[in-house]
């Protein structure tokens, strides 16, 4: 009898498990991998350089992802987990430098340089337009009153041919 009861209990437990697992597509540990990845995406591997935490293949990163999973399960949100990592490992775990102190340089300098460049370009353009316009290239014109020598004629035709070829 005892044996039967134990067997029955085990089978029921097994049966219930099968029933429930048949309901979902995939085995989802809570929180799911996708939720862990969503947080890990915004963090960088504290050890290996320049590799985001969601794709880093090392053991250390695997442990950190498990840590994220724990924290998510405990009800922490995205920002709290990020702050936790920053306190533990420093600013380098964030995908970009936090906006404080010296770090403002990297945010301000490039737009400043571009705007400065734009100002320079406009100044240069203005300056180049204000300079005295270059004298137009003179074509040999037959001067009135002076006989048009054959050389002048040939020179004119020569200049014309030259212009035609240039275009």
């Amino acid at each position, binding site marked *: 009898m005892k044996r039967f009861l134990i067997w029955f209990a085990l089978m029921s437990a097994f049966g219930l498990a099968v029933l429930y697992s048949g309901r979902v597509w*995939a085995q989802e540990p809570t929180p799911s991998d*996708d939720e862990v990845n969503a947080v890990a995406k915004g963090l960088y591997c504290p050890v290996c350089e320049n590799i985001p935490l969601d794709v880093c*293949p090392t053991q250390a990163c695997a442990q950190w992802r498990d840590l994220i999973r724990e924290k998510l399960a405990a009800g922490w949100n995205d920002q709290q987990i990020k702050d936790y990592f920053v306190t533990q490992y420093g600013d*380098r775990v964030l995908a*970009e*430098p936090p906006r404080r102190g*010296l770090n403002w340089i990297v945010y301000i300098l490039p737009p400043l340089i571009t705007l400065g460049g734009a100002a320079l370009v406009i100044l240069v*353009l203005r300056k180049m337009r204000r300079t005295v316009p270059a004298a137009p290239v003179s074509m040999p014109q037959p001067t009135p009153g002076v006989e048009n020598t054959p050389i002048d004629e040939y020179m004119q035709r020569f200049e014309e041919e030259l212009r035609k070829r240039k275009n």
Partner: protein
Amino acid sequence: MIPTFGYSVLVITFVLAIYGAGAAAAGALLRWPVWVKSARSAMLLTFPLISLSALSIIYLLVTNHYDVQFVYNVTSNSMPYYLKVTALWGGQAGSLVFWCWLMSAFASAVTLRKWDRDSEFLPWVIVVALVTLAFFLGLVIFVENPFVRFWQTPGGQQIVAMFQPAGAIPIAPPDGRGLNPLLRHPGMIIHPPMLYLGFVSFVIPYSFAIAALVTGRTDDRWIRLTRRWTLVAWLFLSLGLILGSRWAYDVLGWGGYWGWDPVEIAAFMPWLTGTAFLHSVMIQEKRGLFKRWNIVLIILTYDLVIFGTFLTRSGVLSSVHAFAQSAIGPLFFGFIALTFGVSLGLLLYRWNILRAEGQMHSLLSRESLFLFNNLLFMGILAVCFWGVIFPLVSELFSGQKVTVGPPFYERSTGPLFAGLLFLMGVAPLAAWRHSTAKTLGKAIWKPFSASLLLVVALFILGIRGVALLGFWLAAWVTFVTLYEYGRGVMARHRRSGESLPVALWNLAARNRRRYGGYIIHLGIVLMALGVIGIEIFQTETQGTIRQGQSLTLGKYAVTYKSLAEFDTPDGRNVARAVVDVSRDGRYLGELHPRRDYYYESQQPMTIPGVRSTMEEDIYVLLVDWQPISSQGATFKVYHNPLINWLWLGGFVFILGTLVAAWPDKDPEEEKMRVSQPVVVPGRV
């Protein structure tokens, strides 16, 4: 014996390079043509010599000479032959020799051309080429020597040295460490050579610019001479970047193609200045403007090329690519500072004679728009440069290490790239010299209206925001470019009666640079489509599933069918999963994501199974967060819309560059063939 031979040859070449540079300079300054000839011979001799050295390294690699440290580091018994050859650039020392090999090849090719009208440039081109070559040879000889060997001293110590220490005996380990598994992919085999070809060939236009400065030649001769070199250099650099991103997508396992890694950026920066230079020189050729700016651009490109090689090789900014730290850093930094200083000094010395020949007429002229194009490229350069440098600056000044990652770059460069796309749609229709808003508007309104119609259609389909802007820009540029082609073809057709396909062919053939350039722009538009698709619309999911179970991502389901695990003869353990992909319940196909584990280097690699169509990629990775078995495995599924337009665009881009760079028949020859015989009156 072979290591000593290979090393000695390099030392000889080093001395030869220094001699050649000195002789060329002396010959030019003191007007002794004999010295210049001697320098030329020295230049030509460097290529066969370095070839001997490079071939020695390859021989050592292929014959498993593990007593040589470099061979030990990059090869192993189980590697196939072709990989052993390509291992030449699989490590720091070998790739520096490879760089020298390419540099001497290109410099020799330049030296062998006809110099009749430009013989005053020759000595200075040789000086620059040989000084650069000597620097890299010096690095190899004194710092990163691929020929050093393992020895055991009488005291039992294991050391590494070039020449045999007293009483020591050589040690030859039975097997090598093997090439980094990440490098054993076809893309990775040609990506470094392509990049190096690009880097090395940009030295040539730079050397001509320096020659022009030194000899005081203020015209655009140096630009015309190096026009094709610049295009070829740009072609190789672009190809190297595209191949690198394809490799990253195929193999690095994060479903992306560009990670804003410092080393990627290091190769991207000379590309930025190079592209700005390509556009800007057209203005100097057409209007005689921006002479000083063009010199600044090519100086920047050269030093960014050296800087790029420095970033990849010195390990000063650790990244996915970096190899071990070495003493190379300060030497590179010194060389860059020196060349930058000297080049700028020369420019300032010649500042006054580099006056503009013409003037700017209007803000909307093509010259002006090219200037804005340059501005945007410089802006992107500023973002990249600061992003790469800042972690060092931060560490230096505040002790805090920070990461400057993709969000920073994407946000900062996004608007600038959008601006460039916009300009690509305006500049082709802007006139040289005089252009007002009215004339420009008249030229533009047809393709512009067409692009707006498309935008409305996309809006109705539900596209919003940045994606809508991106698609509009793509449509805008496409319509303008096709409009330009259409106008050109119709003009030819009407004038000469050629059929439309013939007219198209002749149009491009007669003006390769312009119409090749338009094809390149179309290529960029296609690439932009791919970028928009994957950056804005990518979705992903991850989960651990048992055999028979599925992961869903939107309309797609990925079902785990089976797993095979086996060892391969080249030293890795492969776990190969079979998954089925279906959409809306309909079966699409089978994919085989793999996890390769390399025993020697103890490194895993994930190779995705990908189903590619022009519409999207379904990209499935076998992730080993959990142990992989047939009971359960973790899969990550990415849905990457439009990504294949990126690769197609890359292909069109390269095609366009080939069209632009294709040699024209010599224009003088052509005219002689078609002209009528001249009849001189009075003579028979």
